[in-house]
C-alpha cells in the first residue's frame, strides 16, 4: 500500500518535472534576452489551441511523424534499425507526385487516391528494399546504409527535379507538375488538416494489433526478444526481417504520399525535410510502442508549431525555439528513463 503510493507520487513528481523544468530553464533564457516568459508561454497555447488552423498544423505534422515513427519502430521489433525514413519518405513523395501527374492523372478520385497511396508505399518499400538487400545479402550494417541512402536520395531527387521531372510551367524552379486535382485529399475546416491523420492513426492501430494479436506478430516478438533463440526454433528470421523492413519503407512511403496528395500537391526540394529524423526520435522516445507513438508525435508536432508562434511573438531567432523543444525532449528522456530491466 505504502509502496504503491510512493510509486504513484514518484510518477506524479516525474510528470511535474517534465512539464516545469524545461519551461523554467527556458524562462531564464527569455528573461536574459529581456522578453517576458509569460507572454511567450501564452503564445504556445494560442498558437496550438487558439485557432482551428493552428491545431490543424499540429495534426499535419503529427501525421508524418506517426508514419515515419512507425517506419523506425517496426524494424526495431525484429532487431533491425531503420534510420532511413527520411529518404524513403522523400523518394515516395517524388514517385507519388510523378504518378499523380502522369499515369494516374486521368483516374477518378475514388480509385485514384488509393492507387496514389499504394504507389507511395511501393516506392518507399522499394527504396527500403535496397537497404535490406545490402543488409541481408551483403551483410552491410543497416544503420549506416540507411543514413547514407538519405543523403543519396536528396541528391537523386535534386537531379530529377532540376532535370527531366521539372515542371515546364514552373518558371524553371525545381518542382514537379501538379498532381491532378481529383487525386488530392480534401482538407477540413479551412485548415491544412486532411484525412491523412486517420490513415496514420489507423496504421498505428493496425500495426499494434498485428504485432500483439496475431500469430505472425508473436513470431516477430520472439525474434525481437532473442534472435539466436528464434533461429534455433526454426523461424526463418531473415525472411521476417526482410518483410518488416519493407513494411517500414512502405509506411514511410505512405507519409510521403499523404504529404503530396494532402498538402503539397507536388514535389519540391526540401519537402518533408527532417520529418524522417523527427519520426525516428518520436519512436525512440516511446520505445517503439505504436500507440504511444501517436502521443509523442503530437507532442513534437505541437512543440514545433508552438515554436513558430513564439518566434513570431517574441522576435527571438528560430534557434531559441529549437532550444526549448529539445529541452522538453531531453527532460523527458532524463526523467522518464531510470532503471530499465
Amino acid at each position, binding site marked *: 500500500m505504502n509502496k504503491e503510493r510512493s510509486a504513484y507520487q514518484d510518477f506524479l513528481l516525474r510528470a511535474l518535472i517534465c512539464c516545469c523544468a524545461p519551461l523554467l530553464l527556458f524562462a531564464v533564457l527569455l528573461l536574459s534576452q529581456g522578453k517576458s516568459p509569460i507572454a511567450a508561454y501564452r503564445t504556445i497555447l494560442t498558437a496550438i489551441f487558439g485557432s482551428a488552423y493552428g491545431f490543424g498544423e499540429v495534426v499535419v505534422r503529427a501525421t508524418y511523424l506517426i508514419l515515419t515513427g512507425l517506419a523506425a519502430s517496426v524494424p526495431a521489433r525484429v532487431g533491425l534499425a531503420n534510420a532511413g525514413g527520411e529518404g524513403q519518405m522523400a523518394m515516395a513523395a517524388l514517385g507519388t507526385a510523378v504518378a499523380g501527374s502522369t499515369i494516374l492523372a486521368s483516374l477518378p478520385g475514388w480509385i485514384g487516391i488509393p492507387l496514389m497511396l499504394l504507389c507511395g508505399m511501393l516506392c518507399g518499400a522499394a527504396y527500403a528494399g535496397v537497404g535490406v538487400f545490402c543488409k541481408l545479402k*551483403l551483410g552491410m*550494417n543497416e544503420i549506416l546504409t540507411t543514413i547514407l541512402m538519405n543523403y543519396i536520395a536528396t541528391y*537523386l531527387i535534386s537531379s530529377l527535379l532540376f532535370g527531366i521531372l521539372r515542371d515546364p510551367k514552373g518558371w524553371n524552379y525545381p518542382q514537379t507538375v501538379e498532381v491532378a486535382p481529383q487525386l488530392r485529399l480534401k482538407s477540413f475546416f479551412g485548415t491544412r488538416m486532411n484525412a491523412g491523420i486517420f490513415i496514420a492513426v489507423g496504421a498505428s492501430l493496425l500495426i499494434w494489433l498485428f504485432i500483439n494479436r496475431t500469430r505472425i506478430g508473436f513470431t516477430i516478438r520472439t525474434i525481437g526478444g532473442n534472435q539466436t533463440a528464434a533461429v534455433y526454433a526454426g523461424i526463418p528470421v531473415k525472411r521476417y526481417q526482410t518483410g518488416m523492413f519493407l513494411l517500414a519503407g512502405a509506411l514511410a512511403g505512405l507519409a510521403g504520399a499523404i504529404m503530396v496528395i494532402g498538402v503539397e500537391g507536388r514535389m519540391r526540394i526540401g519537402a518533408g525535410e527532417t520529418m524522417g529524423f523527427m519520426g525516428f526520435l518520436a519512436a*525512440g522516445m516511446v*520505445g517503439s510502442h505504436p500507440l504511444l507513438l501517436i502521443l509523442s508525435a503530437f507532442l513534437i508536432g505541437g512543440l514545433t508549431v508552438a515554436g513558430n508562434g513564439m518566434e513570431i511573438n517574441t522576435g527571438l531567432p528560430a534557434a531559441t525555439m529549437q*532550444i526549448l523543444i529539445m529541452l522538453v525532449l531531453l527532460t523527458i*528522456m532524463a526523467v522518464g528513463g531510470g532503471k530499465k530491466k
Partner: protein
Amino acid sequence: MSELTTILICMISAGTPIIYALTGDLIGQRAGIISLSVEGSMLCGACVGFMLASSTGSLLLAVLGAAAAGGAIGSMQAFLSISRKSNMMTTGFILIFFAQGLTTFFGRGQLGTSLGKSFSLAIPGLSKLPILGPVLFSQDILTYFSYLLPVAAWWALTRTRLGLLICSVGERPEVTEAYGYHPKRLQYGAVILAGVLAGIGGAHMSVIYAMSWANNMINGRGIIASSLVILCSWKPQRAYMAAYLFGLAQALQIFFQIHEVPVSMYVTLMMPYLFTLIALAVISTSKKPSMPEKLKIVT
C-alpha cells in the same frame, strides 16, 4: 601547384575533423555506447573554439575550450544513455538538434567576427618534400596530431590495461564488474572522451579549415563520422582509410566540376556517400565485422 597536390591537400583537411570525431566515437562504441551526438559536440566545439580563437588569438585556448564544450555534450549523452538508460540513438538526435539551437543562438555574435590570422604551421624541412611536403607537412598543429590519433587509440585499446577494460565493458560488462571495476565509470569516460575529441575536430573545422563560424557548419559530418565507425569495423587503425576516403570524395566533388569531368553534378555531390556505401559493401562481403557484443543487443 599540380592538381594532384590540390586534391590531396583538400582530402587531408576535409578528413581531419572526421578523424577526430571518428576515433572518439569509436572508443565510445567499443565501450558499448553509440554517440550520434558527436555531431553536436563538433558544433559546440566549432562555435566555442572559434569564439576563443578570435577573442584571445590563442589556438591552445581555443582547443581547450572546444574540448570542454564537446565534452559537455558528450557528458549529457553519457548521463542519458548510461545512467538513465535512454535509447542512445534517439538521445543522440535530440542532442544534435539541441546543440544546433544552442550554437546558432550563442554564436550570433561570431558570425561577423574574423580570426585575423591563420594558424597553419609548416614543419620546417619536411614541408619542402615534393608532393608529400605541401600535402602532409604544411598543415597545422591539429592536423599533425590527427596523424597520430588513430595509432594512439589503437595502442591504447589493445596494449593498455585501461583500453582493454573499455573494450571488455563493450563485450561483457558483468565480467568487468566481477573483476572489481566500475563499468559505468569506464563508459562515462569513453563517451565523454568521444565528445572531447569531436569538439577538437569541430574546432579544426571552424578555426583552421573554414576560418569562420557559420550556423550549422558541421552539416551532418558528425553523423557520418559516427557511422563510419562501422566502416572501420570498430578498429581504430582503419580510421585513416575511412576518414580520408570521405575527405577524398569531398575534394573530388568540386574537382570534377572545375575540370569538367563529364559526370552529372549531382553524382559528384553524391560521391562521399556513394564511396562510403561501396567501401562498406566491399568490406562487409570480404570479412565479418567485429561488432562489440553490447551494440548487437541495442539496435
